């Protein structure tokens, strides 16, 4: 489970304005975002961000617009320079890199997929897919095989000689993904990569990404404002609000134990039956249940269990991992888990 840490962000601050260093001191002394803007005309972009992103996992950074998520992802390849903090990739501090090292990192260490695709409109799909290789100095003949391989992998075999504007949005983003994959870099940054696509295509693309990830095991850092998307993709979920991290952890964990009213509001509307997995609600025990209605996998979502039980709440299921029992699931527990954690208002009032 615990893989090596690939990207590590430590105490990262970003302040936009004329004298960010001065403003940083105020922030460290506890000044908030609205006050800083009003009194010193500086915008607090990111505040004390600490995230570890593990090798081979999808880390999803979720937040509403203005929460600083796009700013955060651009720090990782230093498209934006931080005001303070450290960014380590494979244990090396990216902020110490000189221009050549940084260029090498961007060329070979990481690739990026953009919300608005950002393909080169005057190049063919093939040339776009091979852009990362072209930048490294390969000619079209040299990278053609590699680019075609990845285009085929994302389902665009027949479109190599077309221009981007001849493709639909979903197909353009497939080119964007092929371009990122063709660079063969271990880290992939995806900035709201699917947000501009319509829901059906978005779902297709999410499946494609998961399928590719199954095989390639890259370190993917994915930005989104869509909770369903983040729950579907994330191994590690980071929730960002107003430039600081509200909660981070395994998505199921956050769903079951939200620690902030902001997150509770957020998760109040989702379809819990589809998102929650058996392992999150089951009782962990090796003892066989008295009346076993059947075996279910720990990775099944609750929806499929409800379908299987035909709505009968008297049943008890055995939860297995690779054939061995790891727990039991009572349908009554399952039904209770479908009710969201109390809405934020009542909890806050109870605490007062």
């Amino acid at each position, binding site marked *: 489970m615990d893989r090596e840490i690939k990207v590590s962000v430590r105490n990262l601050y970003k302040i936009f304005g004329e004298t960010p260093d001065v403003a940083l001191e105020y922030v460290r002394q506890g000044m908030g975002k609205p006050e800083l803007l009003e009194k010193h005309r500086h915008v607090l972009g990111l505040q004390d961000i600490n995230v570890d992103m593990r090798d081979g996992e999808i880390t999803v950074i979720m937040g509403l617009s203005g929460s600083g998520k796009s700013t955060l992802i651009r720090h990782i390849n230093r498209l934006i320079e931080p005001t303070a903090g450290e960014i380590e990739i494979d244990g090396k501090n990216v902020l110490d890199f000189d221009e050549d090292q940084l260029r090498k990192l961007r060329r070979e260490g990481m690739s990026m997929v*953009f919300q608005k695709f950002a393909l080169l409109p005057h190049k063919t799909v093939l040339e776009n897919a091979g852009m990362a290789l072209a930048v490294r100095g390969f000619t079209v003949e040299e990278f053609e095989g590699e680019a075609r391989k990845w285009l085929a992998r994302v389902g665009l075999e027949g479109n190599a000689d077309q221009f981007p504007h001849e493709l639909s949005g979903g197909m353009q983003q497939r080119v964007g993904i092929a371009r990122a994959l063709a660079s063969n870099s271990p880290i992939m*940054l995806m900035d709201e990569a699917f947000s501009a696509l319509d829901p059906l295509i978005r779902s297709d693309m999410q499946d494609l990404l998961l399928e590719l990830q199954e095989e390639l095991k890259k370190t993917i850092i994915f930005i989104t404002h869509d909770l369903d998307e983040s729950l579907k993709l994330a191994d590690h979920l980071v929730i960002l609000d107003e430039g600081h991290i509200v909660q981070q952890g395994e998505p199921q964990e956050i769903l079951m134990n939200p620690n902030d009213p902001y997150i509770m509001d957020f998760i109040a509307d989702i379809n819990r039956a589809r998102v929650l997995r058996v392992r999150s609600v089951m009782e962990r025990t090796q003892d066989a249940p008295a009346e076993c209605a059947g075996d279910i996998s720990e990775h099944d979502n609750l929806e499929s269990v409800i379908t299987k039980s035909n709505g009968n709440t008297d049943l008890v299921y055995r939860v297995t991992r690779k054939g061995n029992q790891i727990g039991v699931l009572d349908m009554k527990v399952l039904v209770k888990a479908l009710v969201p954690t109390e809405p934020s208002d009542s909890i806050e009032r109870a605490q007062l």
Partner: protein
Amino acid sequence: MATYDFLFSSLGLKEWCAEDASDAPMSMAALLNKSKGTEGEATSLWDLPFPSMDALNESCAAFPQSRELTQGLEQGFLAIKDNLSIVLDPITQPLSWALDATLYGMVNTPWWIVIPILLAVVLFVTKSWKLVGFVAGSLCLLAFIDYYEYAMQTLAIIFVCAFICVLLGVPIGIAMSRSNMMQRLTVPVLDMLQTLPPFVYLIPLIFLFSVTESKLYGIAIILYAIVPVIRLTNLGIRLVDKDVIEAADAFGMTSQQKLFRVQIPLALPNIMAGVNQTIMMSLAMVVIASLVSAPGLGVLVLQGIRNLELGVGLVAGLGIVILAVILDRVTKASLARINASQKQ
């Protein structure tokens, strides 16, 4: 007694004024007054003259007259002219050669070679047979009414000047787009070049170069026509989609790779629009430049004005319109082709 005597006496400058008194150049008004014998009459407040250089000179002879300003400018220019020529002559000499060679080449090559070559160029840049037909018709019409040679001279000058405009203008535009400082320095110059009446360019050039040299009108045309290509190159590069630039950065492009693989190709529609404007403006200037011995259709227009030959002037004007339409259509068609290949 003049109006502003009190000014100089109160400043204690009376002696300085008297010291340098001379009766030499006088303003026309003073001369008229003198001859009428009305000088020195008391004036009412209604007639109070503005304290201009001439009015102050009346009170204080040592104060310079305004004509001395223009004269000083002229003398200053004449004084540096020789040194300026030493520098400018060798630099601009290739322009003369290019203009002379192109003029010679286009006029002396037989029409049955030049016209097919021009049509081939049109076909190459526009890929439109319709346009080739139109250009062929227009050129044949001009040739039929015996304006072929003049039209070729005009075209030759435009080709050379527009080419040099692009050669100089695109790099200047790129430099402007990369540095805000450069832009701040260049924009006022461009504004001046664009608003200065075209005749004004000719005045210092006539002093600097001999009228028999073709670079004289070449420089005038280039100065006048270079502005749009610089402006639109700058604008085009600044307007390149920020997302694409960000992608180029994220994939580790060097700034040179970014310029040649992303910025210039994406700015090309704007740059081509600038080239189109530059060509049209050099056509406008080539007519005016006939005043300083530029050959071509402009000479006929000038002849029409000078000798009151209405027909010659009108037909030559029509010829210029035909050339303008040809050049505009051809550059627009090639622009449309670039646009079609990279719409987003």
